[in-house]
């Protein structure tokens, strides 16, 4: 170790890897991973969320899964739950849509209205 900067760089990198273990004040992305969701492709959606968060060095959001959300015909479904508890439900997702949600909703704090359940049911 030659400098304090070097130590701090390792610290930043390691923090990213373990940030999943700190769930205070974080946006939660919850993907429905019941049989219906998995059959509709929820798995690639979830992996896309995880990869995109990692790629963009986002430390204030975690991805987790849940069971059947109930509207199987709209799967894959993901809910984005803000720090304040406000919930946005996205439906009929795929990997591409997931990446866009990370870019617009998580990073720029603008929900992707066209993917939300309200739009899909219109």
């Amino acid at each position, binding site marked *: *170790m*030659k*400098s*304090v900067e070097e*130590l*701090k760089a*390792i*610290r930043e*990198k*390691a*923090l990213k*890897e*373990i940030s*999943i*273990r700190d*769930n205070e004040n*974080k946006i*939660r992305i*919850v*993907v429905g*991973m*019941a049989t219906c969701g998995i059959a509709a492709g929820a798995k690639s959606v*979830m*992996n896309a969320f*995880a*990869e995109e*968060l*990692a790629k963009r060095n986002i430390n204030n959001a*975690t*991805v*987790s*899964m*849940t*069971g059947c959300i109930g509207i199987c015909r709209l799967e894959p479904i993901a809910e984005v739950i803000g720090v304040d508890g406000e919930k946005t439900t996205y439906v009929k997702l795929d990997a591409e849509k997931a990446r866009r949600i990370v870019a617009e909703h998580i990073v720029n704090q603008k929900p992707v209205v066209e993917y939300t359940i309200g739009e899909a049911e219109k």
Partner: protein
Amino acid sequence: MIYRSHVLVCNGTGCVSSKSPDLMAKMEELLVANGIENEVKIIKTGCFGLCEKGPILVIYPEGATYCNVSVDDIEEIVNEHLVKGRIVKRLLLGDKEAEDVSKSRDNVGFFAKQKRIALRNCGVINPENIEEYIAHDGYLALAKAVTEMTPAEVIAEITKSGLRGRGGAGFPVGRKWQFAAQEVSDQKYVCCNADEGDPGAFMDRSILEGDPHSVIEAMAIAGYAIGANQGYIYVRAEYPIAVERLNIAIKQAHEYGLLGKNIFNTDFSFNLELRLGAGAFVCGEETALMTSIEGNRGEPRTRPPFPAVKGLWGKPTLLNNVETYANIPVILLKGADWFSSIGTEKSKGTKVFAIGGKIHNTGLVEIPMGTTLREVVYDIGGGIPNGKKFKAAQTGGPSGGCIPADHLDIPIDYDNLLEIGSMMGSGGMIIMDEDTCMVDIAKFFLEFTVDESCGKCPPCRIGTKRMLEILDRITQGKGEEGDIEKLEALAESINKGALCGLGQTAPNPVLSTLKFFRDEYEAHVKDKKCPAGVCTALLNYVIIADKCKGCSLCARKCPVNAISGEVKKPYVIDQDKCIKCGVCMESCKFAAIEKK
């Protein structure tokens, strides 16, 4: 590699013996079977503290803490939680219906009153991965010390924090560092005492297993402060997991250049090596420890000269205990003022205790100094099992004493415990209920010291042996008038005459039980009775005629045919034949047998 879930599995010795490695193997197998081995990461970590409920595992990002997990539960955890995202509520620790699972354990008294400083990373990081330690501010304190502070400033900060030695005696740490720093010598050493030997104590082991880098970092800081370039950790070979993780940690620290030459590109260099002890209790005494590191038979020598003047190989040496070191990096990072705001006037910070004996929550707890014994026993410990009454707590191991129920509200700190004839000790705390005989307890600890006495000085070698003989007589019902006074006289001469701390304090368990429970000694000696019903030689098993239904079960169970009678009439025990094994009492369905 980014994982969507981290599973932290406790790999402290407690959970390892309750089969946590088997859980991990099973889980790995099932992750592969479900094709999610690249999504879920299994991490071994250190002690969470609540060994009673082990094995414990925590799953993130949900932060769900599962307790008492068995191999059979793993399939459900993988299928439900990891595959489908459904919490396995029945295994949650604490409030099983908590809306936010990560908060399920918040109302568990065991965790609520603790403050983790020395144990800050135990159960949080993977001890075999230096980067996880670095992520939690690891080695930043060392960086700060060597690049921004002078050695004198480091010592001043430690002195100001009020930290006292956690090995038991409570000597101010800053002053100890100062003594070693002011010696002029071509070579100095920093040593770590990890020869934890008190019966029931496992604080140091848990720190070494759960957070070995905190000790390594602190020893390097100490080396910088006193001007030493070589350190030794003296750890007992009976701690294989701690030894393994220390070896890994030292190797990683060398690889990252946090040990070795020119650390942070400064003139400061520091090397660290392990020395394994064979498990002699006396080697926890500082002079014996250093004699043992030198390769000689572990025996103490007279002080002065103190180690700070003439220690290892005759050179100035600084010696601190594991828990003391674990506090150092945090003090440098958060400041002396922060540290000294915790605790009591003369005892700052926290203390780790290993709680055992007759208590619900056996385990490892870290509490702010000044917490009362009542809070430790009832709020954190969960009280005494089976509705029994608290009788006493034993602290300080074979050098300490008993704290009776009258002193339950005493705030725990160095000075308060000394005042009532016990001591802080390294942190073992054994809780005793009404069924514990205090003479028997004193005998237990004295047996331990007699066994562990190195034999170098006569007061300890001969004196403790004579005391044990007297205690043995008393518990056999052969106590004589004057025995108690003889015990007191012997205790005084051993305390004054023994060479080292082990010998000087060896009579403490007897003295403190005599102080608070003299009536029990007198009952043994004069009335030949053991009030707690423990000393078998003083007991008789008796059938109460009114309660006996004459079922003959006890007579059939008795291994020596000491019980006779006629069916449907009260049976009788022949006291001459009875070997007092207690089988009859256990087998009786009508509670008709008593021991008196």
